[in-house]
């Protein structure tokens, strides 16, 4: 089967356009966070003034609680994000069409498709949060910057270092298990990436909260005040990691089934398998720690960070420097 070079070129043009749109989206989201920080501060000041003036607690309140502020910059950010995701999706599809197969046969394609899944997952989160109720911490757009930034960084690295021209698969990868196993791995990586963003925010927020509680002064990062409280961030992070963990579980299972077909044994302790196993165990540690007294909260969050570090290691170091059966064609 021949490779359609024109469509492969189109895929690249679409990707560059998508990256431009992501960049615009990131800037708008950043502007929104900066605004939000200021606004929340003044609102807090107003509320504190009202409380000082002797406002009594009301047992029965009518909803909606407070009119959400208009966030024009966030709206622009989301529009650009949708545009970028569509272009990105186009790029993924074009890549697949040009090579007549699923577009995840080498590291470049894995990054291309993986970031697209991250983008779509983020949009799903935004829509779901919007449905669940407007305003306050339930708006997922606060994650925008923390999604666009890693997506852009990943695409940049992938284009610079992993790019390979569109090509057919080597026989070892030519299996429908590739479609299943690698796609689940992409989903898992994507969810873990967003989950990691949420964990980092949670840790930063928690530090700010505890410093404030201790009467300390929190300087810089006013935008953090626009984000939900650390408890809420922890919950979001947990839900993402939990779904991610299930995906890692299926990655392991599908990988084992494929290994049985391809290498005649379902588990080889090949270096890539070892690291996927390590990632899985570290995430299990995180989930366990959440229910272990003395380990929940900050320590569990560190474990989630460690797990994400293992994912990066697996993708960037193990793929390239460790010998093993899992070598991708042309990196």
């Amino acid at each position: 089967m021949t490779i359609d070079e024109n469509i492969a070129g189109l895929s690249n043009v679409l990707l560059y356009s998508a990256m431009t749109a992501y960049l615009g989206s990131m800037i708008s989201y950043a502007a929104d966070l900066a605004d939000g920080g200021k606004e929340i501060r003044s609102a807090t000041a107003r509320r504190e003034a009202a409380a000082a003036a002797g406002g009594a607690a009301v047992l029965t309140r009518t909803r909606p609680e407070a009119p959400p502020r208009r966030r024009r910059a966030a709206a622009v950010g989301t529009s650009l994000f949708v545009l970028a995701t569509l272009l990105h999706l186009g790029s993924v599809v074009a890549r697949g069409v040009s090579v007549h197969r699923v577009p995840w046969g080498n590291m470049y394609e894995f990054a291309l498709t993986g970031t697209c899944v991250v983008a779509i997952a983020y949009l799903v989160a935004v829509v779901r949060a919007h449905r669940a109720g407007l305003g306050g911490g339930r708006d997922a757009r606060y994650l925008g910057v923390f999604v666009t930034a890693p997506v852009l960084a990943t695409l940049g690295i992938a284009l610079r270092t992993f790019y390979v021209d569109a090509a057919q698969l080597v026989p070892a990868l030519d299996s429908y298990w590739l479609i299943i196993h690698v796609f689940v791995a992409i989903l898992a990586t994507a969810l873990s990436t967003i989950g990691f963003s949420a964990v980092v925010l949670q840790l930063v927020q928690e530090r700010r909260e505890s410093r404030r509680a201790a009467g300390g002064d929190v300087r810089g990062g006013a935008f953090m005040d626009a984000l939900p409280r650390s408890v809420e961030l922890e919950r979001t992070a947990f839900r993402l990691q939990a779904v991610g963990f299930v995906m890692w579980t299926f990655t392991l299972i599908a990988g084992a089934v494929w290994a049985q077909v391809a290498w005649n044994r379902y588990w080889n302790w090949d270096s890539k398998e070892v690291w996927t196993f390590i990632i899985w165990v570290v995430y299990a540690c995180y989930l366990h720690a959440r229910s272990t007294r003395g380990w929940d909260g900050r320590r569990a969050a560190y474990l989630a960070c460690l797990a994400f570090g293992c994912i990066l290691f697996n993708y960037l170091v193990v793929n390239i420097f460790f010998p093993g059966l899992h070598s991708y064609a042309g990196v």
Partner: protein
Amino acid sequence: MATTDGTHLDDLRDGYRDGADGRPAGGAAPLAPLEFLRYCWRQLTSMRTALFLLMLLAVAAVPGSTFPQENNDPSGVATWRAEHPTAGPWVDRLQGFHVYSSVWFSAIYLLLFISLVGCVLPRARVHLAALRSRPPRTPARLSRLPEHAEAEVAAPPEQALEAARAALRRRRFRLDVHPETGGGSVAAERGHHRETGNLLFHLSLVGLLIAVAAGSLFSYSGQRLVTVGSGMVGTAGSWDSFSGGVWASADDVPPFALTLDGMDVAFEAQQTTQIGEPRQFAADVTLTDAPGQAPRRETIQVNHPAELDGTQISLSGNGYAPVLTYRDGSGAVVKSGPVPFLPQTGNYDSTGVVKLPDATDAAGQPVQVGLRGVFLPSATVDASGTPVSGFPDLANPLLIMVAFTGDLGLDDGVAQNVYELDDSRLTQVSDGQGRPFAIRLVPGQSVELPQGLGTVTFDSVERFASFDVRHTPGQREALVFALLAATGLILSLFVPRRRVWVRVRAVDGRPGVSRLEVAGLARGNDAGLREEVDGLLAAVQAATPAPPVGDDGGSQHVDMTTGRTPGEGS
């Protein structure tokens, strides 16, 4: 965390948290032996130890990816040992070349699984009892629970209570109705299968471990290289290498027979950036399952093994076997046939040896001759002038070898690697000027060796295939347990465990109107609890008419008013 009436909240939140039924986590070890054992057991089965062992397992798995492992890269191990003469013995002593069967790695996972069983079985007993228990009674002050909403409906308390009961039933809650003076309450609970899922997950991991362990006892694998036109049989003596579990041997291999009829190999030749990438490897074979059975034709490809009564035959490698004929000094044909050369690079620069222990030289004296060299399927020269292969397919085949005479060492009784020549007792054959005699042949050419050692003819090139014959029992069981574990995991992570209470009271002075309170409590973090409480309230309101606007116009009696205590959640 909101303060509440006490027992229920703590019961729900903390009773489960540690997996430890309220026992102290630390403390000094008591001295009495039995007490001490009990103390150790408790420590081992605590959540904290489980966490520690899990982390240890992750760390212990790392060295297996940094050092080559005997089980999948024996030649890498040999190279590593040779390159690190001081560190090598230490890594050996620490079992670093077979990490996953090492004493310390096994100790970690065995302890982990003992801890798991010790932790999960008592929990299973508690859970079985919980499955039969009734929902806990309605707390006195619902407004103190983390989720709380209230409203008024135009229905007498009995009717409103019935509506609430029906709505809870529809949402598949387990429930109890408690009549109270001037109204009543419903206590409801759902999501027991969160815990069922957790137990299923952990126990399935035990099952998985057993399936894998049992499988490895009975599993075997044999490797054999076959050139096109020849074959192999499943009998004990026919393997290049064979390894089996404790309860498996070469006699367990089914008595099959296989002939390699042809090899279909293709490499990328057009697309410039991918030149030489493999595109197709397929071995056409004739397979007879057992003596006397009808032979069948199969194509074994990468990702498409052949099945043989629970045993798989897969294609694990391929390469070239130059067909050589050697006539010794007396003119007799000592050897004629394909000699496999093992590929060393992506372009199939291949190395191989020929051992000729039974030759006679021109003077009629017995002599041993050895040949060693490289085969290049598409010969070219690299920048430094060294001959290399520039493409993996057969575009310009070239065979380059040197010859030795002396003692091949085949009579020592020590098993030798057929792909290596031990030149410690051999002397290299040189040309007239004292330089090593070089053999350079293309197919069809012959060369005469000096010193009357005979002639070598390169007739043609055949291909070979390496087959991996492997039996891994317990795979189906392992898969079943893995899928059960995944199911349990999904239940345990995503089934919300909730308790909900509804209280209905008549409103003083307004007959036919009831005040409805709904409150909820979740185990762990549960973002859907608020929707559950609000949805339940809405369902009851939908099933009963809205109350008339209060005649006294009091501001408390706002239609569809929803109450919520500040500070939801913990």
